[in-house]
């Protein structure tokens, strides 16, 4: 059984932060990384995010599936950007420096490569932070924190429940797929892709049907224990902010402000080394 990605229970300073802090940091951090294309800030964010992994005691193999997934997506995205607009960089930076004496529509320019480097850096600045957030935030704390920032608690709780059931659903999928393989559904590499997709549907239907049964039970169980009675609810996992919470939020806020200031100083979202 492999685990796609999920909360991993450990003791670390990052786990100790409240869910609300982490959610707020995630938002500020993503905003900072989204606003700017400034290479220097993106580089700082990327390095910083990677440093946080050992602090949070999350190992590469815990998130290997998501890393793999992201890398594939990143490569695809980079190639496509280059194919569809190989001159986007020159438009952005206003100069055109052909490299290695080549010229023509698809010839590499320093501006394009620099632009795409920034593009890749953006991934490195955001994705690790998101992964870290998911791995270190207990789903029920996550629900509590969503609720704290103003999302209604029934929505918050459904999100948390969905996160919690990921491992269960994986397990069920595994069991159903074993049983259908015994009946002759071919899922191994022997079958063509189309056949495999078709076979997958014969697993998904029972998976969905049995999940529906569970949803019915859990929603009854929740109603029977007063879920939805009041406009508000309290949270057993709610915790008070500690100094580290305030520090983290301030750091992330500063990063966001830096990003805005840099945008202002650069005159655009881009840092331009070409002029």
């Amino acid at each position, binding site marked *: *059984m492999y685990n796609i990605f999920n909360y991993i229970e450990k003791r670390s300073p990052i786990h100790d932060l409240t869910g609300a802090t982490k959610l707020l940091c995630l938002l500020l951090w993503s905003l900072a990384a989204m606003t700017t294309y400034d290479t220097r800030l993106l580089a700082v964010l990327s390095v910083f995010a990677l440093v946080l992994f050992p602090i949070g005691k999350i190992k590469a193999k815990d998130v290997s599936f998501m890393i793999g997934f992201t890398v594939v997506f990143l490569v695809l995205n980079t190639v496509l950007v280059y194919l569809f607009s190989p001159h986007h960089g020159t438009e952005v930076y206003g100069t055109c420096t052909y490299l290695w004496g080549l010229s023509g529509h698809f010839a590499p320019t320093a501006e394009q490569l620099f632009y795409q480097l920034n593009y890749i850096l953006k991934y490195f600045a955001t994705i690790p932070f998101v992964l870290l957030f998911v791995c270190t935030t*207990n*789903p*029920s704390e996550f629900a509590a924190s969503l609720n704290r920032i103003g999302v209604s608690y029934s929505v918050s709780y459904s999100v*948390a*429940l969905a996160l*919690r059931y990921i491992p269960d659903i994986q397990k*069920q999928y595994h*069991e*159903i797929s*074993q*049983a*259908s*393989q*015994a*009946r*002759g*559904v*071919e899922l191994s590499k022997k079958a063509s892709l189309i056949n495999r997709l078709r076979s997958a*549907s*014969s*697993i998904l*239907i*029972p*998976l969905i*049907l*049995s999940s529906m*049964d*569970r949803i019915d*039970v*859990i*929603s*009854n*169980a*929740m*109603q*029977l*224990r*007063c*879920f*939805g*009675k*009041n406009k*508000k*609810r*309290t*949270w*057993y*996992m*709610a915790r008070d902010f500690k100094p580290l919470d305030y520090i983290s939020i301030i750091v992330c806020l500063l990063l966001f402000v830096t990003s805005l200031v840099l945008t202002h100083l650069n005159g655009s979202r881009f840092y331009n080394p070409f002029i």
Partner: protein
Amino acid sequence: MSDYIIEFKNFGFKYRAQAEPTLYNIDLKIKKGEKILIAGPSGCGKSTLAGLMNGLIPFSYKGEMTGSLLINGKESREMSIFDISHIVGTVLQDSDAQFVGMTVAEDLAFALENDCVSLNEMKERVKEVANILDLGTLKKHAPGELSGGQKQRVSVGGVMVSDVDLFLFDEPLANLDPKTGKQAIELIDDLQKKTGAAVVIIEHRLEDVLYRPVDRVILLNEGRIVSDTTPDELLSSKNLEMCGVREPLYLSALKYAGVTIDPSMHPASLSDLVLSAQDKDKVRLFYSQVQNIKDPSVKEEMLEVKDISFTYEKAEKRTLNDISVLVKKGEMLAIVGTNGAGKSTFSKVICGMEKEDGGEIFFLGQNFADLSIKERAEHVGYVMQNPNQMISKVLIFDEVAMGLRLRGVPEEEIKERVEKALKICGLYKMRNWPISALSYGQKKRVTICSILVLEPEMMILDEPTAGQDYRNYTAIMEFLKVLNERGITIVMITHDMHLMLEYADRSIVFSNGEIIADKSCAEVLTDKETVERASLKETSLYHLALKCGVQDGTAFVQNFIDYERGNVRRNV
């Protein structure tokens, strides 16, 4: 304030989607501190009755009500499900599925959170309840790390925090092994004594619930209350038989022996049961007169498993440790043991769904290692516990034909083979029905049929009768017996001791990844040590034998089984 927590007065109910009412003329009163069992076959209306008591009807399931239902003296129609949940606390059947919180403590706190109780007060209350239920050390554990009994205690705690006046248990024994079930009944009894609240248990396994005394048993059938009386009175009447609810085994044995049961004998509990010297003589006479069924034929070996071991990825402990089993052709045997003992893993390894670390499997002399999961399925079919996990087509015919179509069998041959299988399973008339129109038991039949069509020599069934009432249980088991008589070897993974006793020739007992016993069911269920290690329960027949002065309790149990097989089951 009324004396009664629940008061049904000439009450009737019809679901919106149904043509006929589910409940008729219900008159039922439940006082504070009472302990009541509601029994009846599937579809008798007992779940509907429960839904009305806890407010899920009409809050989640709509319908028409007639007459009146008072909860703590107030008309329930005027109350919300939340008002009701402070009076009636419900523990649902599947304690796994109703776990809402991430950890034990959060789950206990759930109702308090929704009532906006402050954090400090909440922590205090959770601690208190956790201590009462002996969950203090488990507060930070996730549901997956708990045993079946612990999960049930958490479910109880989750409603206990709200200080309810009545605990409603919806089939509390359905997912538990016999020993845990026994503990659950003890827990419910203690709970009632400690809190003084009323308890309503909905369950069709009468013998197991009556392990601890109840005040009244309400017997429901076809939407009406058939009887509302003490267990002693009920067990002396013919009502149970009429409604298709199983009576305790020791009473069946007494009846076979010709003993007449009357309330003064206290038939509700074996330890309080008063038997006259004459009655005991009758039982001993019965014991000595039974003809044992001996099957003299030497059977061919079918499946030979040698020293199989298996460890799940990332697990430290072996799930299977040097397992060796021999299954003969035409056998019908049971695999029993606690959850996690390795029963299901064992079947998966045989079917090729998991790959063993070491050891060998031979099937009719052929080494199974060379065969893929798909090829093995043509010899050994595997039927999962929950039919919904196997059904992926809309129509019955297509579902049964799926395995053949995937194997590229010509359509004409498919038609012939599917129709034959459908006839064996009694589904031929329904072949063009949508599966969604079937009952749970019928769906189970469809999944068995869809495996049967591949013509395996052996079938492994995971909990074939879980959650079924006596009538369905008998229907499914008799059907399996017919298949067995047609030459198919049947292996059943089960927690149900009645099933073992009545249908299995032999049982293999798993405990902690090892086989601790492999012998006749009568021997297993009368052996104290095996029973203890495998979380089973000694059969009441054994204690009846001792009570009547029969020296060899095991032989008595065996004779009872043989008598039933020879004289009773045939006529069902």
